[in-house]
């Protein structure tokens, strides 16, 4: 086990000059071939923008002379050049021997994809401890075992058997589940989410979730951290690290295993009341970690927090061209602790001078009325964004025949440029015909949703209320 955090350990995983794939296989359905393809082509399945690893790649397997047209070595000892990182795709029974060989070869870091360790019980746990001890002997870093691997888009490194590779972005995703990461990548590509790092920590024989959060603190590519977690050993260290890191880099957590109610105890009330998820909620709040309810929130929150500054000025305005959507949004805001600013007479006068419909709502949510053209949106967005007592704005657009979704998007983008410290979320409700506007918003780092509830939740995350 690593006592004090040493960031060079993770650097070795993320920035290798050469990678060996041990257990590289000619079988297209094998993990070994998946990892090799990820390195050689950037992605197992073709996706736009996947880049091959720029360093050296060495397949290792005593049963093959070449795999995917690359020369294959019988063991790491046979590779004539130094190896920085080895990805192990060999059966559990062979792992210990391979770890030793890698140590002798002076490999700096290992990704162990193999399952069959602590997750299967006592016998597996012993094997896991043995391999950790062996790696420590040679001062090697280990990721895993039982993990999908690591993807570092900025370095064009995909040392995983994920089916596809996500694009370069500014959110680091640290996941305790490998299988989930796979689906998340596929979904992220569909939904325009991008990553600075994607790591599956597996059984954490050595490096755990907290180590990666700590590493992200000074990673120039990471602006926000998304974490999927099932369990942790050292909660206090997690809190200490998150308390510090979350000051500069927002951390969003999706925690699995919430059902656990309090334990039945020998008659004390507290024991039966305080369930483990209540403690998680308290801990997160104490160390500035935002709790997400589901995967969509995990990435919506971390995406928004990576592209916009957080604020503690909890006093927002809702601008809408549809009364119903505005009222719904106000309800969701209230549920999540967001306060709606009361618009002053001065503000209303300014709005009217700039041109409001005579039936406009004169209050927050500011209903511009259905026929609102971009000019009326501009009057409202510019006025409220520049009003001092308003800390953040949600802009709702329902689709009417005269709605100009691209112009409305541009108005929001321009206003956000003038007031970058005020969080903005948009709800451009619709589908095919609102897409050009929503796409433009997202490209400019403004969170956009089809649903006022999701917008309110993301706003609450940006205001530090979750």
């Amino acid at each position, binding site marked *: 086990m690593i006592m004090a955090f040493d960031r060079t350990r993770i650097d070795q995983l993320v920035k290798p000059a050469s990678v060996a794939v041990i257990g590289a296989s000619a079988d297209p359905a094998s993990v070994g071939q998946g990892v090799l393809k990820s390195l050689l082509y950037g992605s197992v399945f073709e996706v736009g923008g996947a880049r091959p690893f720029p360093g050296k790649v060495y397949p290792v397997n005593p049963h093959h002379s070449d795999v995917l047209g690359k020369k294959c070595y019988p063991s790491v000892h046979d590779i004539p050049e130094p190896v920085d990182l080895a990805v192990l795709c060999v059966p559990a029974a062979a792992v210990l021997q391979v770890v030793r060989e890698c140590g002798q070869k002076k490999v700096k870091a290992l990704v162990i994809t193999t399952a069959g360790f602590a997750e299967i019980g006592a016998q597996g746990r012993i094997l896991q401890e043995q391999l950790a001890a062996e790696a420590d002997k040679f001062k090697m870093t280990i990721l895993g075992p039982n993990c999908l691997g690591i993807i570092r888009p900025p370095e064009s490194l995909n040392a995983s058997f994920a089916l596809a590779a996500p694009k370069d972005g500014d959110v680091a995703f640290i996941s305790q589940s490998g299988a989930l990461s796979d689906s998340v990548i596929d979904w992220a590509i569909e939904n325009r989410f991008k990553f600075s790092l994607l790591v599956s920590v597996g059984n954490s024989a050595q490096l755990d979730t907290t180590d990666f959060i700590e590493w992200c603190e000074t990673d120039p590519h990471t602006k926000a951290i998304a974490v999927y977690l099932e369990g942790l050993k050292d909660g206090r260290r997690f*809190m200490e690290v998150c308390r510090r890191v979350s000051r500069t880099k927002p951390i969003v957590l999706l925690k699995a295993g919430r059902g656990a109610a309090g334990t039945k105890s020998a008659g004390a009330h*507290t024991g039966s009341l*305080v369930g483990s998820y209540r403690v998680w909620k308290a801990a997160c709040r104490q160390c500035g970690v935002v709790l997400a309810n589901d995967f969509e929130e995990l990435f919506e929150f971390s995406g928004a927090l990576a592209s916009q500054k957080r604020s503690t000025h909890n006093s927002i305005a809702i601008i809408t061209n549809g009364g119903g959507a505005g009222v719904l949004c106000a309800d969701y805001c209230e549920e999540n602790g967001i306060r709606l600013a009361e618009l002053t007479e001065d503000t209303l006068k300014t709005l009217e001078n700039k041109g409001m419909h005579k039936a406009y709502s004169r209050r927050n949510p500011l209903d511009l009325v259905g026929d609102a053209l971009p000019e009326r949106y501009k009057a409202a967005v510019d006025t409220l964004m520049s009003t001092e007592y308003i800390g953040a704005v949600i802009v709702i657009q329902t689709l009417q025949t005269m709605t100009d979704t691209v112009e409305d998007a541009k108005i929001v983008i321009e206003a956000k440029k003038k007031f970058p410290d005020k969080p903005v979320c948009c709800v451009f409700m619709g589908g095919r015909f609102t897409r050009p506007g929503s796409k433009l918003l997202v490209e400019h780092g403004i969170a956009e949703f089809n649903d006022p509830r999701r917008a309110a939740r993301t706003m609450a995350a940006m205001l530090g209320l979750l």
Partner: protein
Amino acid sequence: MATALGYKQSLSLLEAYGIETPVQVLVRTPEQFDYAIADRLRYPLVVKAIPTDAGHKSEKHLVETGLRTAKEAKQAFSSLVQRASGTPLECFVIQEQVKGVEFIVGSKKDDVFGQTIMFGMGGVYVELTRDFSVRVCPLDTEHAKAMLLETKAAAFFTRDGFRGIHASLDATARLLVNASKMVEENPRIAEMDLNPVIATANGCYAVDCRILLEQKGQ
């Protein structure tokens, strides 16, 4: 498995951490009881029988409250002796009754985060209302106050109180901070209930306590 810390030892632990308790006397015999209530305590009084396995006393009807005279106290005592027959007792407790708002303060050692502290509204009904707040220890005064104010109990801590009943925010927060310090510095405490805790306009007192320790070697 956990074992319960005795009442007397629990009281000394609370005292060591500055957690206030009502004025009380521990007795074992009727003679000691008579001597104790003779002239030292202020009425009304509360009398409790403390079983060695320290279950919920009110559920076993081992508590008598609102005793206004020596006669009432003696009657209560003899009926307690009768009801408790067959239950192994550590002692009897005679307490000066505190009038105020009932809260619960508790702690639980979490597998992942270690000691945690809980605050909730009133006594036995907290399991129904589930209106309580939780923090991972340690706790400073500011966070303790935030904990108090995020429950419905907040109404009692306002200047005017709830229906004229006011509880001291400072004293209750101080008790919470002290309790947090106590469990943090005594990692063998697996669970603790201070239930009820009674807050008045100027003070806050742990009226009953139950402390469970981890078995040695755990």
